[in-house]
């Protein structure tokens, strides 16, 4: 729980998940909390007010921690995860409720698109008598849907200031902070008990349901009085139609296949092939690396240990730069832009719905698609986001699956480059099938073995919309920068460690030591042992090391090595997070399990694929 109250931009593992670090001064005059249902534009409002970046997305449930930012006059603004009421149904709700009840003032962001639903939370906060204002957001989209809201009437009924806005274009944002001066507790629903009594009554599940029923009835009436419906625009009907279309399983499978193929073509062929050829071969190996070697060679002779450490094969200066800027950077940018587009247009929640049936077989529900997809970006960040899942059971299953079967973007970047050498599409198909089977078997086993019961899906679907280029550009850029900031130091430390083991002869020793596994079981060259050693420092680092050996390996050997390295130990950063989130026992089991699964599955692949000659 402790981590929830920390600055979310700096996870305690030292990895930054979503944006820049901001020092929060200790003397705070007032704490203002942003509250609202999921996907109503809270994060956009937060950004507009603080100038900070948070992950604005069209997927309910992506804000896990509480972003904070300073306003003028030492006022602290906190964002909260989207919730439908103050009722502690999940950890997210617990965090949100705690922040809202501790606030001096609340800014309640309400979507004009779903007024009736959203007003429940508004009335809940009012009934708890927190001084607040309401920001009525997405007014433009509401107009498009033919919804007309009488703002003056709404303000009168609620008894708190109501500010209409279009946060995404900035319309009305400048009126929010001045309105805070008039924040007030508002009008509780008729016959509402006093705050302390109400809190106590809501502790009892049956009485709570009764009170919720009264509140629901009251706000439904209120919404009916202020809302009038006209004719929806053609754009909106199209968005609805698209939304429905993407819920069709057949369309889902086809669009999923198209999305996968587009990712393969754009990131795999154009970026990993053509662009990386220029950035790595021409720029890094052609100019930068030789320049570094000349400079280092001028100071330290070529056969010294220091030269090897600094500018050798795994050199701190040479290899780190070559991989970070030559290979990873273009691929990471490509991957993030792509994922951001899918996220921003509302396609991801539809995937959650379609995958719910499958995920419930492995003890998860459709919501777990959020951490799993985030895992393709960064497993560390994804493990933290498993908090959006309702039970500990689901979190255990999701973290284990993430740690073992999901390759992160850094790893995928290198895997894509290697797959081109291993036979392209066919190799991909085999690789994905193997990982998918491992995921299913592992999930099914965990679902059978773990005690308790998982929860079922209840997910609100946001409308489909055209992705905003500004949003995507900003999101991809910040994510890339955060990734580089996190990855670069570990990369440099990693290559330092590897260079040292090389200079001291440990790397050769490890190659002999691990030979029974690498050579006999996996049918790989002995040098791949060093890849597994590097993989322990950082997951993608292992894959990157493989890239160097690839020209000496056959297609099936590359595939075996890739499967093994993917299933193998999660990187140090993500292991630290699993330890923190799930405890030492569970994280140790995950670690040991990943070794076992990696080598067993790797062995099977080596014998089946190597023997069959399908590649």
């Amino acid at each position, binding site marked *: 729980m402790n981590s929830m109250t920390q600055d979310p931009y700096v996870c305690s593992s030292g990895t930054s998940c979503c944006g820049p670090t901001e020092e929060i001064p200790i003397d705070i005059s007032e704490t203002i909390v942003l509250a609202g249902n999921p996907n109503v534009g809270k994060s956009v409002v937060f950004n507009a007010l603080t100038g900070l970046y948070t992950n604005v997305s069209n997927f309910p449930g992506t804000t896990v921690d509480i972003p904070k930012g300073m306003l003028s006059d030492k006022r602290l603004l906190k964002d909260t995860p989207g919730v439908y009421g103050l009722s502690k149904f999940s950890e997210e709700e617990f965090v949100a409720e705690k922040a809202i009840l501790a606030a001096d003032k609340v800014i309640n962001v309400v979507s004009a698109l779903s007024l009736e639903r959203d007003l429940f939370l508004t009335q809940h906060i009012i009934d708890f008598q927190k001084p607040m204002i309401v920001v009525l957001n997405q007014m433009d989209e509401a107009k498009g849907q033919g919804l007309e809201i009488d703002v003056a009437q709404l303000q009168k009924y609620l008894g708190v200031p109501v500010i209409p806005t279009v946060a995404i274009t900035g319309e009305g944002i400048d009126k929010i902070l001045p309105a805070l001066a008039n924040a007030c507790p508002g009008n509780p629903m008729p016959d509402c008990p006093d705050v302390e009594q109400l809190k106590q009554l809501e502790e009892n599940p049956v009485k709570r349901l009764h009170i919720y029923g009264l509140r*629901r009835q009251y706000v439904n009436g209120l919404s009916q009085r202020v809302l009038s419906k006209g004719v929806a625009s053609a754009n909106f009907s199209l968005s609805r139609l698209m939304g429905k279309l993407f819920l069709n399983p057949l369309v889902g499978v086809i669009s999923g296949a198209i999305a996968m193929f587009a990712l393969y073509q754009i990131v795999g062929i154009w970026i990993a092939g053509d662009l990386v050829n220029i950035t790595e071969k021409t720029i890094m190996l052609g100019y930068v690396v030789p320049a570094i070697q000349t400079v280092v060679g001028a100071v330290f002779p070529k056969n010294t240990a220091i030269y090897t450490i600094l500018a050798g094969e795994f050199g701190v200066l040479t290899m780190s730069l070559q991989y970070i800027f030559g290979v990873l950077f273009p691929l990471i940018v490509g991957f993030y832009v792509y994922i951001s587009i899918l996220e921003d247009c509302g396609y991801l929640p539809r995937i959650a719905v379609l995958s719910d049936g499958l995920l419930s077989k492995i003890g998860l529900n459709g919501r777990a698609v959020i951490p799993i997809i985030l895992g393709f970006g960064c497993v560390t960040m994804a493990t933290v986001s498993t908090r959006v899942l309702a039970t500990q059971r689901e979190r255990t299953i999701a973290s284990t699956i993430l740690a073992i079967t999901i390759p992160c973007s850094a790893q995928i970047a290198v895997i894509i480059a290697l797959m081109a050498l291993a036979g392209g599409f066919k190799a991909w198909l085999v690789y994905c099938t193997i990982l998918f089977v491992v995921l299913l078997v592992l999930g099914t086993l965990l679902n059978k073995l773990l005690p308790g019961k998982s929860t*079922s899906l209840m997910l609100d679907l946001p409308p489909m919309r055209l992705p905003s280029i500004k949003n995507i550009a900003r999101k991809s850029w910040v994510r890339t920068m955060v990734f580089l900031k996190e990855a670069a130091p570990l990369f440099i430390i990693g290559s330092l460690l590897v260079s040292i083991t090389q200079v001291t002869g440990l790397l050769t020793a490890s190659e002999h030591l691990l030979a029974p596994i690498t050579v006999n079981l996996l049918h790989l060259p002995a040098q791949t042992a060093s890849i597994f050693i590097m993989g322990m420092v950082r997951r993608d680092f292992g894959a990157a090391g493989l890239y160097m050996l690839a020209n000496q390996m056959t297609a099936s050997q590359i595939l075996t090595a890739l499967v093994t390295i993917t299933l193998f130990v999660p990187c140090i950063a993500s292991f630290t997070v699993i330890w923190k989130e799930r405890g030492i026992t569970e994280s140790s089991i995950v670690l040991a399990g990943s070794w076992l699964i990696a080598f067993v599955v790797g062995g099977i692949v080596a014998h089946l694929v190597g023997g069959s000659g399908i590649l």
Partner: protein
Amino acid sequence: MKSTMLTLNDIKTGQTVVIKNIMDVGIATQAMRMGIAIGESVTCIARVPAGPTVIQKGGMELAIGEGLCCQIEVAFE
């Protein structure tokens, strides 16, 4: 606990039904906050085979998993 009555799992795309009972108090409470309460009518806009039912009420679209749908008893109007 499985219902013998008609539940959200039994309706087809395009059908509109009234919610009659939600068997679990916790689920009823969560649904209540989102505006899905006993007596409200909802329209099914999509059914994923062996998966969730997607219902629409007002401007809201809500996907409900199989395990929850079988707890929500409904009737045709």
